């Protein structure tokens, strides 16, 4: 009973805030509503028993992505009124696409038929008496350690690519050279001049 109530509350907030993301006039408010939508989706995940996904959603999407959005919205001088000027013209077409997409999703929900063999073949069923996070950790770092390492290599390639394609070595930039600094001798930089009284160093 309590669960059902929580589900309806979270879903209602998620849907309403998602709508507000689209309709809000002020882009900063739109991003804030987006964060609210993320939070309620995280609540739905908890209800489904996927605590880890809920945590990730909050940490990654709210903590990183949405904050980045906020930065972008605040830093860039974008005239959102101008961007939205074409909204009315395309509203019919956009609405039609939205209706069709929603129709497809709903139709899929009604005709969804599981393959009979799914139960028997299930690759990684959630183990009994094990928390969500522990189960995922046991899978990712043990059974799927190969995938974990491969994903690391993919990220390494992305890093190499970013450097190769954008880094330019400029000439004439003064860089710190530790070796030169440390091995500098006194005689290279200090000169003792015997100054005659009254003459100065000219």
């Amino acid at each position, binding site marked *: 009973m309590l669960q059902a109530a929580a589900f309806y509350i979270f879903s209602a907030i998620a849907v309403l805030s998602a709508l507000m993301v689209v309709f809000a006039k002020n882009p900063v408010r739109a991003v804030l509503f987006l964060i609210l939508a993320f939070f309620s989706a995280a609540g739905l995940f908890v209800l489904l028993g996927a605590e880890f996904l809920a945590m990730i959603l909050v940490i990654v999407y709210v903590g990183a992505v949405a904050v980045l959005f906020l930065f972008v919205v605040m830093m860039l001088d974008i005239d959102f009124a101008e961007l939205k000027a074409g909204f009315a013209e395309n509203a019919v077409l956009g609405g039609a696409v939205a209706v069709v997409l929603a129709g497809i999703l709903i139709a899929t929900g009604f005709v969804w038929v599981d393959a009979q*063999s799914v139960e028997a073949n299930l690759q990684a069923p959630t183990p009994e008496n094990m928390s969500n996070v522990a189960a995922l950790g046991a899978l990712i770092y043990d*059974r799927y350690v190969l995938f974990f390492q491969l994903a690391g290599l993919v990220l390494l*390639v992305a890093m190499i690519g970013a450097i*190769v394609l954008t880094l330019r070595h400029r000439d004439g930039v003064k860089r710190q050279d530790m070796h030169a600094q440390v091995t500098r001798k006194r005689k290279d930089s200090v000169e003792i001049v015997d100054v005659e009284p009254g003459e100065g160093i000219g």
Partner: protein
Amino acid sequence: MTVETLLADLSLMTPELVLAIGALVLLLVGVYWRSEHGGSRIVMRLSMLLLVGAAGAAIYLAQGPGGDTFNGAFTVDAFGLYAKTAIFLAAAVALLLAFKYLETEKLAKFEYPVLVALAALGMAIMVSADDLITLYLGLELQSLSLYILAAFNRDSLRASEAGLKYFVLGALSSGLLLYGSSLVYGFSGTTEFAGIAIAASEEGTNVGLLFGLVFVVSGLAFKISAAPFHMWTPDVYEGAPTPVAAFFATAPKLAARALLARVLTEPFGAMVDQWQQVIILLAILSMAVGSFGALIQTNIKRLMGYSSIGNVGYALVGLSAGTAIGVWSVLLYFTLYIIGVAGAFAVILSMRKAEGMVERIDDLAGLSKTRPTLAWAMTALMFSIGGMPFLVGFFGKFFVFYAAVEAGLVWLVIIAVLFSSVSIAYYLRVVKVIWFDEPTGEFLPAPAGVAFVSRAAGLATVLLLPIMIGLISLVVNAGGGIGG
């Protein structure tokens, strides 16, 4: 997973480990050994050595029984090891072709060979994939490296455009592939090929599984540049630096084809009636686009792009048979195709005049008078790629058509032969320009590596004929591991 099982699994991954660790070490060597002091050259040489070493490891493993590793995520069998050996050697040849070119074009950076090695690693993982996640990770590792290589000449507008175009379309195809994979996972409950095979044999007509299959095949069709997913190919071949295009045309093609063969015959083997129509459609469209598109090209790199689309079509004819013959004939086809294409690109890389690289077909005019050996090599290579009798390329085409006839697809073979004769026309045009047109200027002497590859590949089109039987038994043995 205990230490013992982990070590046992890793020992079967020796070629991949050699490449992965080697690439990381070379990255460090490149960073600390400045290019001014010959660092990029050293990394280049060591990368070639690394690739040859990995090929050696693959050949060594092929003597053993192989097996599944990492709980069935990665499989080591004769099919995968044969493909790996070919991929590593093709990548090494691609580096040999790139060596001098990069230096003269001021592109000599140590990242180039490292990226080629990492791309080869991705391909090796693809051909051994036994799980949808392995498949995707291998494919992404390979594709990401290739996107960067395509745009490697970052100061050239055309190269940047080629890289960007390749990246955007490649990302789209990865999206299709992932969407298909998620459908397959949803309807079969597993991403392992063995599990999917069970689901496919029990629920072959399940709509969800079928949708997933079609999306996965479409995603892979992008990677092998089969029509109607081919539009990136000519632009990328033309825009990317020539040695990069040479690399694109060889190893990745074989890897993606081997992967497609495994995906179709292992997890979806029971759904052959469903995917056969898709593959036949892809084959006919690719042959048509490849044959007619190439006829109007004036740029030889674009010509090679269209030629590769057409050749993917012929290989798909063999695969559409859905039999063991289909699988090994495709391996044979691509082995011979790689030799031909590597040689052809070596000839293109020899097309350097005093003012720089040239790449129009007309620039080859009168090559027979100015450089007779190069002219002979190019002629043999063009005829071999075109599948003319009495050169090795003929056997590749012969056996893919044989596989299709064996499976009762005679009409498809007739169409393929018709397109094949159309495609001969543009290979003949190149040969005509070489032998019968008046010379317009002389090419500068080619670097030793490039000259060696062009001559060796040209000779191979004839010299491989006596050992054809041996090669065929090799691929039959390799292809026997899967399919049937």
